[in-house]
């Protein structure tokens, strides 16, 4: 059976210009076909450009290169029926639930009665009957997102886009809403022909979707396109489910090139946003468990999501405290020594690792020791980093480097003056 292609992205690239004509590429070479009947998850770590991709598909953001085809016609010319569910719900606080849902129908040439009828139907569908006249501020987070979903469904879109719709909700509420959406989807009550869900939660992707597209980050490229052929309702404890989770975890962690964290030619090293204390916590925990753990088992045991635990693992790998093999996180000899060491030794080991493996810290030390007063404004490093990262990311990078450098007592930071400086310039030799 020939399935209809609803949306196709052809060679999408998105880059932003940051100061002095430097470009940062967020998405690169994205070729994706979304067929009728599919529920596609787009997975990736934060900063992988998943939300940007969704916005390009929605026509909210213009790609730098390439184009989006809606049923074979370029999106700009097509009268596309697309609806979006937002992470922050994006409801109008001054409208009631009914009015908020009717927002989707404005300008469609319907009479007031027709609009009310459709809106009430959508509200009933998401299980909010009786709340038509409530204001969003009277509702809980889960109910607000239900309004957001009703607003999207009321326009009877051909494709429904969801941008991390559950990440602003608490665990139980999110689970409940996921279940309801899947039930509606399976019962054919969601008018859309296809659903695209952007998420950083692997379990969410595996439990809901029929296909998971995994993006790398920096820049975002399609790393894997994995069909999820499990029958509904999906049992999270089944072997198949766990196998798929493990598989996606491995794909997500394992970088496309085999030597991941050393510098790829010309690309500046990306420091994961991890505080030293948290890295130490992870390494010690893994050491207690015998030095090798399954990443998925660990993350569910700690009830941490990908976004929380990956930076820690990545940081451990950069610092040569651990490595990742077949979905397992394994401590290196150095990592084991670090876990066992006392406070002072810990600092020494960390200092050694940071000096060997962290480009930014090396660079900071070089600058500080060459300048006679051994004091440099943070803006100086931000300017350098801005050549490689977005301004926001530049600050994140520097903050991480400062945290690591302070812990290793390599340099200090004066918050008020915004300056990095050497405490005892003479004792450092590079």
């Amino acid at each position, binding site marked *: 059976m020939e399935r209809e292609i609803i949306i196709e992205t052809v060679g999408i690239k998105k880059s932003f210009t940051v100061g002095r004509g430097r470009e940062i590429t967020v998405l690169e070479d994205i070729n994706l076909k979304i067929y009728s009947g599919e529920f596609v998850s787009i997975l990736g770590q934060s900063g992988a450009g998943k939300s940007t991709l969704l916005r390009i598909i929605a026509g*909210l953001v213009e790609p730098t290169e390439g184009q989006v085809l809606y049923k074979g016609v370029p999106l700009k010319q097509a009268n596309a029926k697309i609806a*979006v569910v937002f992470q922050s719900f994006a409801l*109008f*606080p*001054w409208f009631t639930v009914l009015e908020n849902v009717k927002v989707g129908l404005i300008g469609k040439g319907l009479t007031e009665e027709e609009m009310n009828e459709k809106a009430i139907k959508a509200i009933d569908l998401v299980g909010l009957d009786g709340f038509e006249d409530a204001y969003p*501020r009277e509702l809980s987070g889960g109910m607000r997102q239900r309004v957001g979903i009703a607003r999207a469904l009321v326009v009877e879109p051909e494709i429904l886009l969801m941008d991390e719709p559950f990440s602003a909700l608490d665990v139980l509420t999110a689970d409940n809403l996921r279940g309801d959406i899947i039930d509606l989807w399976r019962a054919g009550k969601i008018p859309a022909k296809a659903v695209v869900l952007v998420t950083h939660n692997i379990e969410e992707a595996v439990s809901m979707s029929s296909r998971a597209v995994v993006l790398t980050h920096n820049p975002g490229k399609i790393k894997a396109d994995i069909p999820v052929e499990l029958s509904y309702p999906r049992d999270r404890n089944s072997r198949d489910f766990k196998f798929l989770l493990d598989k996606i975890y491995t794909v997500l962690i394992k970088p496309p090139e085999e030597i991941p964290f050393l510098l790829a030619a010309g690309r500046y090293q990306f420091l994961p946003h991890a505080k030293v204390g948290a890295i130490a916590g992870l390494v010690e925990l893994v050491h207690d468990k015998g030095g090798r753990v399954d990443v998925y088992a660990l993350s569910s045991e700690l009830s941490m999501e990908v976004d929380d635990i990956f930076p820690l693992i990545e940081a451990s790998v950069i610092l040569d405290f651990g490595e990742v093999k077949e979905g397992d996180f394994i401590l290196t000899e150095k990592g084991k020594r670090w876990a066992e060491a006392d406070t002072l030794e810990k600092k020494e080991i960390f200092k050694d690792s940071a000096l060997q493996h962290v480009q930014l810290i090396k660079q900071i030390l070089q600058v500080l020791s060459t300048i006679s007063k051994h004091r440099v404004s943070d803006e100086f490093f931000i300017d350098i980093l801005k050549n490689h990262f977005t301004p926001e990311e530049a600050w994140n990078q520097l903050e991480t480097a400062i945290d690591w450098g302070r812990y290793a007592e390599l340099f200090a930071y004066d918050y008020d003056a915004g300056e990095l400086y050497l405490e005892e310039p003479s004792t450092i030799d590079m």
Partner: protein
Amino acid sequence: MKIPVSIPAETFRVRAIDVVVIFIVLGIISFIIYIASEWGTPYEETLEIDLNPSNIPYYALQSLARIFCAYILSLTFSIWYGYTASRSKIHEKVMIPLLDILQSIPVLSFLPGVVLAMIALFPGKRLGIELACILLIFTGQVWNMTFSFYHSINTIPKEMKEVVKVFKFNKFSKFLRLDLPFSAIGLVWNSMMSVAGGWFFLMACEMFILEDKDFRLPGLGSYIQTAANKGEIEYIVYGLGTMISLIIILDLFIWRPLIVWSQKFRIETVPPEEERESFVLNFFSGSIFIKKIIKLINTTINQIEKLSYKRFPLAYTSIMNKISKILGLLFLMVILISIIWAIIKAIGLVSDITLSDIVLIMKSALYSLLRVFVALLIALSWTLPVGVYIGLNPKAAKILQGIVQIAASVPATAVFPVILLFLIKLGGGLDIGAIFLMLLGTQWYLLFNIIAGASAIPKDLIEISKAYGIKGLRRWKVLILPGIFPYLITGLITASGGAWNSTIVSEYVSFGGEIMYTTGLGALISQSSASGNFGLLLLATCSMSVIVVGINRLLWKRLFIIAKAKYTLE
């Protein structure tokens, strides 16, 4: 046998309140017709303001109409300017600094241009002078509203803007459903402040001298001014009393209900700790007539919205966009050309300025600078302890805030004559007296901000400092000053701007038939406007503008950034 008759309970029962509402509506309509008939008459140059108190209602109504017209003009201008400025980066770069400069120009500096233009447009008609007066009031109240609207529509969360795009709103829907509600709270607050500013400069706007010619319009401002000129304390008190009562009535019947209503447009989606209330709003919301009117307005707006989609279906909007883009660029060019034209004209005007004039301007600027500084210091010295006390004691706040609000709503200009009497008796003259006059107008900005800041200090911080026995001076240093710092800076910015603006009325006062003035930029502006020395007027205005914008940029903005970065409590 009785036949049961069912009467629809709600719809036909007219309550007493509905009669009141109908009377009010009829009153407003006849008021508009009356004002229209008044303003159509030819302008009488020899108009005498009759101090007989029985004329006061007539004068008050006229002033009210002028302030109302100026306000509507301000609102329209603000929305248009705000939209145009956020059209592109270029628009923003030209129009926002321009707004900063315009805001720093005192009302009287606009006077000659506005009045001469209006007389030329409507020669011999009273309408011309009326329009001039309205435009003058407009220049006193429009800028902060514009800033507020511009700021609001530029802080709309990204996802909300995306909703508008995803669901394909047209411009009208976007304005109606997103931009206007989003900016409502800011607009209401700033409207309140602006109208207060209108009362403040009313006297200067209704009665003025230009090129040694006397202009006056019947109004409350000119009534008080005339009474002051004749030194009639009794009549000053009558006029003042009327003005204060009007302000209180407006506050009670318009601003307070509006503020309560605008709470509907709060952004945070959590319920507030304490619902504000307005008994007037509660009272009138019981009226069926009002409900009918609101419903009618709602359906009309909905119909217009639907129509707007029929007239401009989405396919057209790209053409519409192009047209409006071209218009926007044209407008930008008009602004730039008129700035250049103004500069060329200005060079012509300034050419007969002598060196002694420049020395005079510099000397005056220095004097005014000192006065503004001293006025701020004095204001700070009493508002700081009082504001912190009120802010930290909710019980005191309940009683005192009402009193303070009424005191603050009294337009200081109207009290000047009375204060002057005492100052003259005390000696020292206007040289020092001007400081007190400035103080009257600007101290409230400081006080309100300090109260807001003190009441925003978190409870647990207060308790902790109590637990550690932090008292006296240390408590101020550790807890209170850092806690209120951002608010304090905001207050100082507004107060210093206000002080500069009020130099024109506090350094140059006419009272008891004679004109009193002292050395100062404000006095210089008032004088040169009255005598028609436009070169001097221009140069003095530019100096003031440069000083105000300069101080804002160099001092306040920097302090504000520090305040935001370091002392923001989250």
